[in-house]
């Protein structure tokens, strides 16, 4: 193996820059993330190759399959460079026109461009789309513009410059100091300062130390780690290697969910490439420093995202947490000093080394520095990945970047932080993203899942949903978590089924206090957060379920009886055609009627009615 030299790295960077800015060459960046694969981007890509060959454009057009571009709901999507044109929801059938009209005749195709949900106007230029224009892509700086399976593409974007600098110009303690100046906090949920974590592990002497990357991404509604691994795997490898240098580790593992096959494939390719160039493995860049990385596939258990459980899992055991101390910095994997960081945290490290900690901390709030990636989903127009400076308000994320709520509905709440988080109601939308500020309104930053819920959502049902999740995922080792959350779930199920009792609210609170203070690990300690936040902000909804036996949002089947509002019914018959049990009686030109005896409360008619005539 020949080691790549710093000089060679620089040359490669320039070659790539020249390649991308060659005049007369167009680059088509087509998304190859999981979302776009699912909507058919590979077929579109193949068709593009064929059509381009047919028109003899092979020398003037390059197709680059990138990782997730971030705007998944509009896939398959593509950005044409240097024209700065963004195409969405392409199909095979559009390809001939794209090539002949746009690439040959220079007439971009309007009907495939982004349509603003409010103004209904097409937005021709990629850089004018608010979803992208209002973001600050630091962690996601390479998404949509590099081929994640090409190390050259990564190097062309300053890749491995951070590692090169660290190995030649910095002492391990300098690296840690730089991280402290940056002020970056862990993006996996708890927000622990990364520089501090590394300094603890660096202090402990041992011939073997580990650096682990947490790619378990258990929070439902979060997919930023997946996207980073799929779009920019080398950034994570480089971050881990720099961390290894800082604490003097020899080996690293990426603990990745087996549900993420594309991420696993691309990370493995990246590892092989880095080893090949001497950027990983023995004697990295000829400096005498050695470190290697392996992938460990998880087997599906939410609790394995918890650090001590994750380490047990890599050891081949049941992923059960153990009490701390000793902390992993002293006794982690195989009882050796270990640093565990989240994917997103690690993806920031190389840039901090290149640009300096001061650069990083120039953005953000007093106590939360830099940018944060959010996975925006649920009842919002622009679904996808959003990276904003810390200090941005939730309102900006949901309305300006997210484009507001579809179908003119009203926002009810935003769920933040997954099963350990909480729901933030409309009146607190001006809260800014900052670890402490978000905690003040009863949620947590968590890993960054932002789930927008409109007024059709029942908050009591959501509380039940999260408890069901926790109950299923509790590892069962400690009693408060195993039994306590079960009792809580039973109470909530009872309330949703219409058998709630007045004393239930205080019972839930009492159980919450008990579980939070006595559970063994973070899973149990935070299990009650979603319920408590719903109780805090939506107490009247709880009370409606318990005292009036009503579900105001009409989500709890046992508490709703559907009927047709005669004045609104336009006699179209849609409700009758979707009802799976024939409970809707309808004749042409007549108002529909619902037979409550037959109705199974499946909601089909309610969702299908275009005129809101079913209540």
């Amino acid at each position, binding site marked *: 193996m020949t080691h790549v030299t710093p000089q060679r790295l620089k040359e490669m960077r320039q070659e790539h820059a020249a390649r991308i800015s060659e005049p007369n060459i167009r680059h088509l960046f087509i998304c190859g993330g*999981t*979302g776009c*694969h*699912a*909507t058919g981007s590979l077929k579109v890509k193949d068709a593009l190759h064929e059509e381009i060959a047919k028109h003899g454009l092979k020398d003037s057009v390059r197709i680059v399959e990138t990782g997730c571009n971030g*705007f*998944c*709901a509009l*896939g398959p999507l593509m950005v044409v460079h240097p024209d700065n044109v963004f195409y969405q929801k392409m199909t095979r059938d559009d390809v001939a026109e794209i090539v002949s009209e746009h690439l040959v005749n220079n007439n971009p195709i309007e009907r495939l461009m982004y349509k603003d949900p409010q103004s209904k106007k097409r937005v021709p230029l990629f850089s004018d789309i608010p979803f992208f224009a209002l973001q600050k892509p630091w962690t996601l700086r390479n998404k949509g513009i590099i081929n994640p399976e090409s190390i050259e593409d990564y190097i062309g974007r300053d890749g491995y410059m951070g590692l090169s600098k660290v190995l030649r110009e910095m002492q391990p303690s300098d690296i840690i100091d730089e991280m402290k100046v940056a002020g970056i906090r862990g993006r996996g949920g708890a927000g622990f300062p990364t520089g501090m974590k590394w300094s603890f592990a660096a202090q402990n002497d041992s011939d073997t130390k580990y650096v682990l990357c947490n790619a378990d*991404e*258990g*929070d*439902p*509604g*979060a*997919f930023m780690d*997946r996207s980073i691994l799929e779009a920019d795997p080398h950034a994570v490898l480089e971050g881990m290697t720099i961390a290894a240098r800082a604490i003097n580790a020899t080996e690293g593992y990426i603990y990745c*969910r*087996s*549900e*993420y*096959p594309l991420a696993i494939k691309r990370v493995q390719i990246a590892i092989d490439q880095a080893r090949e160039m001497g950027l990983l493995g023995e004697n990295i860049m000829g400096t005498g420093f050695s470190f290697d990385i392996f992938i*460990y*596939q*998880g*087997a*599906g*258990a*939410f609790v394995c995202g918890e650090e001590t459980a994750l380490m047990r*899992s*890599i*050891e*081949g*055991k*049941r*992923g059960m947490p153990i009490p701390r101390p000793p902390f992993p910095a002293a006794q982690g994997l*195989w009882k050796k000093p270990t640093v565990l960081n989240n994917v997103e945290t690690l993806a920031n490290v190389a840039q901090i080394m290149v640009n300096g900690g001061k650069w990083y901390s120039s953005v953000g709030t007093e106590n939360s520095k830099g940018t944060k990636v959010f*996975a925006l*989903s*649920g*009842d919002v127009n622009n*679904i*996808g990945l959003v990276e904003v400076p810390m200090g941005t308000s939730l309102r900006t994320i949901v309305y300006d970047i997210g484009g507001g709520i579809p179908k003119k509905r009203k926002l009810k709440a935003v*769920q933040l932080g*997954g099963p350990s988080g909480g729901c933030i109601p409309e009146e607190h939308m001006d809260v800014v993203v900052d670890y402490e500020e978000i905690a003040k309104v009863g949620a947590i930053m968590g890993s960054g*899942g932002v*789930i927008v*819920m409109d007024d059709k*959502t029942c908050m009591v049902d959501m509380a039940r*949903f*999260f408890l069901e*999740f926790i109950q299923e*995922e509790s*590892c069962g080792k400690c009693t408060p978590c195993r039994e306590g959350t079960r009792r809580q779930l039973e109470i909530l199920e009872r309330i949703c089924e219409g058998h709630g009792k007045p004393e239930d609210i205080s019972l839930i609170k009492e159980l919450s206090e008990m579980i939070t203070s006595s559970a063994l690990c973070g899973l149990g300690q935070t299990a009650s957060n979603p319920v408590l936040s719903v109780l805090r902000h939506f107490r009247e909804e709880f009370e409606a379920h318990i005292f009036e036996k009503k579900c105001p949002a009409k989500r709890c089947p046992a508490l709703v009886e559907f009927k047709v509002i005669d004045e609104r019914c336009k006699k179209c018959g849609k409700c009758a055609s*979707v009802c*799976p049990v024939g409970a809707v009686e309808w004749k042409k030109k007549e108002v529909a009627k619902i037979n409550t005896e037959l109705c199974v409360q*499946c*909601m*089909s008619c309610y*969702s299908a009615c275009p005129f809101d005539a079913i209540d």
Partner: protein
Amino acid sequence: MSCCSEEISQEMWKEVDSVIERHRDTPGALITVLREAQNVVGWFPQVLIEYIAKGMNIPASDVFGVVSFYSLFSLKPKGRNSIKVCTGTACYVKGAREVIGRISGEFGIAEGETTEDRRFDLEGVRCVGACGLAPAMVVDGDVHGDVTADSVLKILEKYS
């Protein structure tokens, strides 16, 4: 080579042997071995658990403990096609419950069950990381996005 069993063919045993062979000396490899063995056999009949325990030199009760802990591993035979409907938060908010309801109704199976003809098994899984396409469903590894209680049966027609 080991013994015989109805569920596991001679060929499968051979492959399981090579899986064990490859990882026997790696500390912590049990989960990897189980994952690869399940890829060969499809699920874990008791003989397989005992066989792997012996091969890896780990008590069978520990192996069973691991198999039953992780949701990836199955102690029951599976259907030919696996339907995994995402029940993560984004998908739940967007109607995953109705999608599962429709599949259950059509094929007469609840979550965690397999149809009698072994055509499908149905599982609710937590966030498959395609929340942008919620509600999402994974059939035999293919991700389908924006599924509805109405469109889901059409998608499933293609899997026999």
